């Protein structure tokens, strides 16, 4: 796609303090550290990339099998394997800066202290646009209850990190939270600058031959087109419940039409995840397609955000069947 088009201002979006040249961001854990994609994507062309989830120390992750395919999606239980924040700062970030990438560091911890420490280590790193907190992790101080699964735990973690950091904070919500809207509100009220949603849905696959789960961990996170209708509904409902809260929509986004759906639902930017595996060049291509779409219609991305909210209908959780 032509530089001219993709560099156009019509694609720029503002999410609280975070300005992106365009709304196409690659999702954590599906884009490595960005450097794996240099042959497929000009990293300077996409809105931003989210790194694999970083922890204070290198982390080995779960035993294989870690992934399996499901209808229109996949399950993963990678177990947050990553090189650790030090190696990231020493070996990955400088290279990403050279390539002109806009980088969002996705981070996680086992305790609130660890989150604070990781964020602290990244605080003054040159060339980080924002830090994204993955709160879908077990809190070892709370018997492994996930930080993201109660508004209280979410609020406690986010305000703790907010107090210690000047960075732009993106809080990534879990769709497995009992009450997503309350969790979103808690994150926002505790100082999140941007909310990204959603992370993967807890699912399972069993091998009939052995009657054992296909993933060694047992359960795994469902991602891909299969979850798109659920993720889109969640973005729509959070956008309705928290008007003005900057949102990044995530879940099964694979083509331009998916991007337009999430923008219409109320997301100011989107994250492309599993689609990167099938089609490593998809993110840059979507920037081009979105630019063409906007120029053909003489519109801007900002104008496309939240249009479905204004049409009024729906959004309520309805009777099924």
């Amino acid at each position: 796609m032509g530089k001219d088009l993709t560099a156009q201002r019509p694609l720029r979006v503002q999410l609280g303090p975070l300005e992106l040249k365009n709304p196409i961001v690659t999702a954590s854990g599906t884009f490595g550290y960005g450097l794996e994609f240099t042959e497929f994507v000009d990293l300077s062309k996409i809105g931003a990339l989210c790194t694999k989830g970083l922890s204070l120390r290198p982390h080995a992750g779960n035993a294989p099998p870690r992934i399996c395919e499901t209808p229109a999606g996949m399950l993963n239980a990678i177990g947050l394997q990553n090189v650790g924040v030090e190696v990231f700062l020493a070996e990955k970030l400088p290279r990403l800066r050279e390539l002109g990438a806009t980088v969002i560091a996705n981070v996680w911890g086992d305790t609130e202290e660890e989150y604070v420490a990781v964020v602290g280590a990244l605080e003054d790193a040159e060339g980080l646009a924002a830090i994204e907190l993955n709160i879908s992790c077990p809190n070892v101080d709370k018997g492994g209850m996930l930080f993201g699964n109660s508004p209280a735990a979410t609020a406690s973690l986010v305000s703790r990190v907010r107090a210690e950091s000047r960075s732009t904070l993106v809080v990534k919500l879990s769709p497995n939270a009992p009450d997503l809207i309350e969790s979103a509100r808690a994150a926002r009220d505790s100082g999140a600058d941007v909310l990204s949603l959603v992370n993967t849905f807890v699912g399972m696959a069993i091998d009939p031959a052995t009657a054992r789960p296909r993933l060694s961990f047992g359960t795994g996170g469902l991602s891909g087109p299969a979850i798109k209708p659920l993720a889109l509904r969640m973005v729509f409902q959070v956008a309705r419940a928290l008007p003005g809260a900057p949102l990044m929509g995530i879940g099964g986004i694979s083509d331009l039409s998916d991007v337009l759906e999430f923008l219409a639902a109320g997301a100011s930017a989107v994250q492309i995840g599993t689609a990167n595996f099938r089609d490593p060049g998809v993110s840059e291509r979507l920037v081009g397609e979105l630019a063409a779409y906007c120029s053909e219609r003489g519109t801007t991305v900002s104008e496309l955000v939240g249009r479905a909210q204004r049409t009024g209908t729906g959004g309520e959780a309805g009777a099924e069947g």
Partner: protein
Amino acid sequence: MRADHRAVLLLRRVFSPGFFSVTFRAPALAREVSPGQFVMLEVAGRLRPYLRRAYSVADAEPDTGEVEFLVRTIGPGTAALEDLAEGSAASLLGPLGNGFSVAGLGSRSRVAVVAGGIGAAPFPLLFRAFAAAGIPADLYLGGRNAAELGFRSRFDGIVRGETVLSTDDGSLGEKGFVTDAFARRAAPDGPGYARVFACGPMPMFAALAKVVERFGVASEFSTEAAMGCGFGACLGCVIPGREKPFVISCLEGPILPPERIAWEKI
């Protein structure tokens, strides 16, 4: 350079029920691929399979731009290849992975290739490299039964050394596991192989790892793991390792020396 090559299917050849080959036209890939490397293949417009599937490049003709894969039908991915009409296109992402190494080998260093069933897939291209470097090589091809040796004819004329066939049920060649057929010959009084190249199911690797260790033969295994991406982005394809917890098989492999793999953890 790695790229996503849009390639047209030129020819499908069936060797035995469920064992077939597909030949695509992909000139750039044919030029760049080296033995043991693989591609992530997608048949477009389908949600099933959703993820690409990995296929070792079986053979490549830089002159004609043809790239061949040997396939065994198992599930949706391989079924999609079986259904793909000649003349229609697929996407081949590659070349990926590290590939076999023939460095340091020459006409005086005899090597062995040990393949189980579909494990034959990567070797036609490797035998080309042997021929080019004048390296004498024997082929040990095993399977559960005769049908699983369907690809044996694919090696006619390209194996300069001996070809030893074996089946678990004895329906073709020697009766028993291919690893035993190999062990019998590789024994101290045997040819004395300078290197062993192998591909097959994990149980075959585990058995072979013991044999080559006993005989102190250097070897390279073409490993297989479920792969989400093929280029290091998903971390789905790890194999338990010796010097570190996990080896990322699509990047550091798929060709790995057995001593780097923690067999007891598989």
